[in-house]
């Protein structure tokens, strides 16, 4: 492996590895890193192929980023026109395929021209961007503070208090025509309920429920019309907490 083609070998290896870890269903921490590099690789390589005379590092970076974004837009449309499903395998194939093809083209061109790879930031811009320890520390601190700001905002959403709620529903099943009754507890804590059913106005045997936060309870009723469900939140029996009802002219969803 020659050093001037190191970028080609790196991108080629990333493309192969990304496909491999997808095949073995690796954890997100692994797929995320490889996936991000694989996503950027076609843009970098196509940028090298197409826009060699880009004058500044910013311009070369912009062209590479733009091409990286172009590949899924146009490639995805071509895959769709080829009647291929746009799933994980297709996207991996597209990005890895473009990467490997561009690697090959660049390899051939470099061998033919015996030219040095035009790496980002070379040669003049790199010299100007060399940072002294003080500014480098300030930039690093800025990144940390900004990351802390986002973390603080995320923590803010986690601690934000919303009023808890309980969902009660009664819907006809589209297939069996039977009524389906359900309760979901989102009160933020384990909650006790009493469920009372009325059929043609006649009260049926009440049912006590204790649901953990996030727990859902369901049951199927043998009735199809004229059903009302009252849900009480214990220990308060005096007030109907939730109410649903289906009369004679019920509607069937679906």
């Amino acid at each position: 492996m020659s050093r001037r083609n190191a970028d080609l070998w790196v991108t080629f290896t990333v493309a192969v590895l990304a496909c491999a870890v997808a095949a073995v269903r690796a954890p997100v921490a692994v797929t995320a890193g490889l996936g991000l590099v694989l996503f950027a690789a076609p843009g970098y390589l196509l940028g090298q192929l197409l826009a060699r005379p880009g004058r500044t590092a910013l311009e070369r970076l912009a062209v590479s980023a733009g091409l990286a974004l172009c590949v899924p837009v146009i490639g995805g449309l071509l895959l769709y026109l080829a009647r291929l499903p746009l799933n994980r395998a297709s996207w991996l194939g597209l990005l890895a395929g473009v990467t490997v093809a561009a690697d090959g083209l660049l390899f051939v061109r470099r061998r033919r021209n015996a030219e040095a790879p035009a790496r980002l930031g070379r040669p003049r811009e790199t010299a100007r961007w060399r940072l002294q320890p003080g500014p480098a520390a300030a930039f690093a601190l800025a990144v940390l503070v900004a990351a802390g700001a986002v973390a603080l905002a995320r923590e803010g959403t986690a601690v934000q208090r919303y009023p808890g709620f309980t969902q009660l529903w009664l819907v006809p099943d589209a297939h069996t025509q039977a009524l389906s009754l359900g309760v979901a507890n989102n009160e933020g804590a384990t909650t006790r309920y009493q469920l009372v059913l009325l059929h043609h106005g006649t009260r049926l045997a009440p049912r006590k429920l204790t649901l953990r936060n996030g727990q859902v309870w369901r049951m199927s009723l043998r009735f199809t019309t004229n059903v009302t469900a009252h849900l009480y939140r214990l220990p308060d029996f005096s007030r109907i907490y939730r109410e649903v009802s289906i009369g004679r002219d019920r509607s069937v969803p679906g």
Partner: protein
Amino acid sequence: MSGTAVRVSEERVVRSQAAPATGPRHAGAQASLIPVSVIALTAAIGVLVVAAAYTAGRTGHIGSGWADRAYWAGQALIVVPVAVRLLGRRPLTASDTVVLVVLVTVAEYLVKICYSPAAFTFADELEHWRSTLNLLQTGKLFTVNYLLPVSPRYPGLEEVTAALSSVTGLSIFVTGLIVAGIAHLLFVSVLFLLFREVSGSHRIGGVAVLYYASNPLFTSFDSMFVYQTLALAFFALTLLTAWRLSSRETDGHRAGWLVLGGLTILATVITHHVTSYVLVATLALICLVALATGQRLMAGWTAVLAAGSALAVAAWLFLAAPQTWSYLLPYAQGTLHGLWALLGGGHASPAAATVGPLGNQALSAAAVLAMSALLPVGWWCVWRRWRGHPWTIAMAIASAGWYVIVVVRLTVPDGSELAGRASTFIFVPAAYMAALAVAQLTGTAVRWRARTAAAAMLVTVLLLMFDGLVNGWPPYWERLPGAHQVAGSERSVGPEEIATARWALAVLGPGNRFATDVGSYPVLGSYGDQNPIRDVAYLYTSPRYRPADSAQVAAQQIKYLWVDRRLSWSLPAIGQYFPDDPRAGKYHHPLPAADLSKYARMSSIPRIYDSGDIAIYTLSGGQS
């Protein structure tokens, strides 16, 4: 092209950077009192202060003045040092200018992330979240999106996000933030490159970007997870391609740029309708001006790109997205009708929407005056020094659109919305003209007046930037995130609404025609994948369900009715309770509770869902 014609104080620095750096490095930066690394740190602290203000809002301190003041203090820490450094009279290196441009863009994007750091909450972002989810679930393009039917016909953003989500395993939200962030930064960076290339001065480029950042949509529609954000990046890259193709320095390397131009044109057309039309118009304008000024090389290459863009737009419009006409036509007709009424001597009636506090309006008026005054100075500068330069002349012509959007904003119904959307594009040439004006005004001032002129320009830029923040998005009534707000935007997206929408999808299935209020509309259409109908105010604004209502329900094929009893608790934050609300801006009292609870008393209308604040009823409109 000659950048030496512009009299700016740092022009010698620009010229010195064209030559190899033989002198002491960072000569300009050393001369400055505020290094860019310190400005970066200040901006990061600004983001932290804004995040703290947002957290205060979420934890119940939204009414306390200090949270609001902290927000503005944070914004000042981001904006003011960058503006001071860019408009200061001390030398500024090209690399420092790039850092400043990137800083302000990234810092404002982080502020946007901090507003909704866990999930998308803005209506337009939810629309594209749904389209992306549909693409990931079906593996197909052009699926149905009930909220924004035209969006799947322009699937560029969804393709990029789905690809990144698929290969990384990250969620749509995280990948959406990455894609939107990269696209936004790319757009601003290329804009800076173009301004710098056209003017020949990196400082003018930086100041122009700063003016562009004062566009009210810079921190919202230009950087949100919406299709325009991505299309803008392709749009700018196509313009950069046009510039490079027209340059004699590109001789021998045009093939690569031409391929790049072809790809970015296609990507623009696939990604966003309006941006692709603006691209055609922009290239055509540059081509015509180049022809008029005798620049044949430029005219030829821009003609090639303009023709290619027009062809791609027409092909996409007829083959893939014919419904774009019906989507855009009402907006165009409304604008033309308003302008026609104005020209005919009558007066068009602007939308009776909510108006902001007096201070906001005063700031807006001052900003309009400032920009309106700067543009003629920019034109004068163009007339004196840039008459033979097609790109500058084209931008001078296009910047006149600024006055058009001011008129539209003041006279056309829904004009604020239209003017705001147009400002994304109009601000590109307008910002450049303003930057030329600043260079002219500060460059011609002498000695002690130079300092006064620089200070005046700094005040102008800050005035415009804070106007963009004050009168942009989020609006004043939702500046800080917090508890549920009736008919709000982000603050109408809470756990109960999301749980109810998800319940609707799981139990009722997708695509049911629903009546709902404006706050729940995007939640129901995105999380719920339902088909919410806009013209439903009549179902909520009378104490009785009349036969005429029943007939209209049948005509509209409405199957379910979403009733949020909180509509009777307070006035609508956005000025209207319903997506199409005939009484928008005219409410003086909340909706009567009886108008909302009438369905609970009707045995013929099943109440199939109850979560306390929200109830869902079955109407007969969907019955076959």
